[in-house]
């Protein structure tokens, strides 16, 4: 079984995003970039499926600038077999990303796609579902458990209030939620080995896909700051304040 894992290079999740003074976006110059945390979980899941003998090949794909090669090398160091970079200097919207991935899937014919449920920059939580729609494949989003077998996948999904379990016919799209697994740290020998694994480069334009943005960013601003609060002396003082504020 062949598994395709899309990964995204984003601002490191420990770095606080700062809005640019001219309100055109978030300042990413000289900021630490890493693999999106949900993508790491997806790579880990694919690699575990290979270690269990269920998956035979894990292909990592990224869409982004030349620096996204580093993100793909991370995926290779975690255990992916090979990687493809679809190079673009634009920041394509989820629909465009889904269309580019659909084109790659047309070439690669994977049995299943495992990807993160959301990127922590745009916070859209949309690409996996859109990709499933474009391919007319079933989708199992927000996975917290995955059992792959020939022809189908049983997926436990995190829903409001609990867990829903569904069984999807392969090929299918699975999106990873936070508690699906804990991603490994790549070992030094594996990082070195990853440098020799194949990494193909393609130009996004060569895939013949409409990636024109549908949304115009008018401005990006800082959220309103909360007014300064006060420290209270003790619990009784706290209750008095809460009564005055009208919330008790």
């Amino acid at each position, binding site marked *: 079984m062949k598994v395709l894992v899309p990964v995204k290079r984003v*601002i490191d999740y420990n770095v*606080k*995003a*700062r*809005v640019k003074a001219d309100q055109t976006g*978030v300042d990413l110059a000289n900021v630490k970039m890493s693999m999106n945390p949900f993508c790491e979980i997806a790579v880990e899941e694919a690699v575990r499926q290979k270690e269990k003998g269920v998956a035979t090949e894990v292909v990592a794909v990224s869409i982004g600038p030349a620096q996204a090669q580093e993100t793909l090398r991370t995926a290779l160091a975690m255990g992916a077999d090979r990687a493809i970079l679809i190079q673009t200097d634009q920041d394509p919207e*989820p*629909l465009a990303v889904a269309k580019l991935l659909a084109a790659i899937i047309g070439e690669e014919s994977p049995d299943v796609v495992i990807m993160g449920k959301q990127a*922590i920059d*745009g*916070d859209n*939580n*949309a*690409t996996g*579902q*859109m*990709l*499933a*729609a*474009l391919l007319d494949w*079933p*989708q*199992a*989003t*927000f996975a*917290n458990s995955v059992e792959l077998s020939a022809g189908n996948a*049983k997926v436990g999904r*995190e*829903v*409001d*209030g*609990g867990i*829903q*379990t*569904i*069984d*999807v*016919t392969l090929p299918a799209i699975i999106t990873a939620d936070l*508690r699906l697994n804990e991603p490994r740290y790549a070992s030094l020998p594996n990082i070195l080995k990853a440098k020799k694994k194949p990494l193909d480069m393609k130009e996004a334009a060569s895939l013949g896909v409409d990636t024109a943005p*549908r*949304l*115009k*960013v*008018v*401005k*990006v601003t*800082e*959220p309103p700051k*909360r007014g300064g*609060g*006060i*420290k*209270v002396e*003790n*619990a*009784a003082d*706290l*209750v008095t304040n*809460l009564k005055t504020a009208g919330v*008790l």
Partner: protein
Amino acid sequence: MAVLVIADHDNASLKDSTHKTVTAALALSSDVDILVAGSGAKAVAEAAGKIAGVRKVLLAESDALGQGLAEAVTAVVVPLMSGYDAVLTPATSQGKNFSPRIAAKLDVAQISEIVEVVDASTFVRPIYAGNALETVQSSDAKKVITVRATAFKAAGEGGSASVESTGAGDGAPKTKFVDQQLVKSARPELAGAKIVVSGGRAMGSAEEFQRVIDPLADKLGAAIGASRAAVDAGYAPNDYQVGQTGKVVAPELYVAIGISGAIQHLAGMKDSKIIVAINKDADAPIFQVADFGLVSDYKTAVPELMDALAAAGK
């Protein structure tokens, strides 16, 4: 222009996030219809018809819709969209599952988790875990939007819209529902609660979390939340998690106990009206967003708070 709102419900009752999404929809157009896609959900449709400002309610029913399967909901909504210019869905785990699928089938962008309607094609949405707000203008003919319900006031009751049946589509042929395990609780639901009491990693164990947080939540009639650290450590179940990757809440009162206030937690609760923080570390970032901070070990502060609440007649 006409707008369709997809109702949030559990086949038995209509959720408040629907009322809030109607408010967002009414900012786009006065012609707002509601779709209830479910199974045995007639009572939900009737409740939806009572929301003020709603023109009519469409009811589509099948087993696959009752299970909320994304393919099934998409199959109902896409043909309906010939009669609408926008479709709005509350950004619950359900809505987030099917809405992007609808958008891609219509070949349009999804505008995710809006918190403000500027005009019929311009919206504000949080990005980078709420550390920035992005104003976007859509050039698509049809808008597919998810709504962060906590950012909008609930539409009132008093409507008398009729309920019409509509086609149930062809279900989800490639997806089989296996089961659903929901946590049963007498407490209010976290996403819509007026008061939320949350515990953090300081609790140290699941037993301690329950011993400290549960009685306080019961006394306040509050829902229970938790930080990601507490959930990851197994002190609280998954669906308690408040934060960027969990639930986003905006109650009247949010009480954070033993929570340091990581960026990812703040993203999920900083729009609460009043925030209370109890933490023994005076430098914890949670105090920067708290209206009332009590620098104290929760082990002494929470029992004292229980006593003070009792003295205040709670």
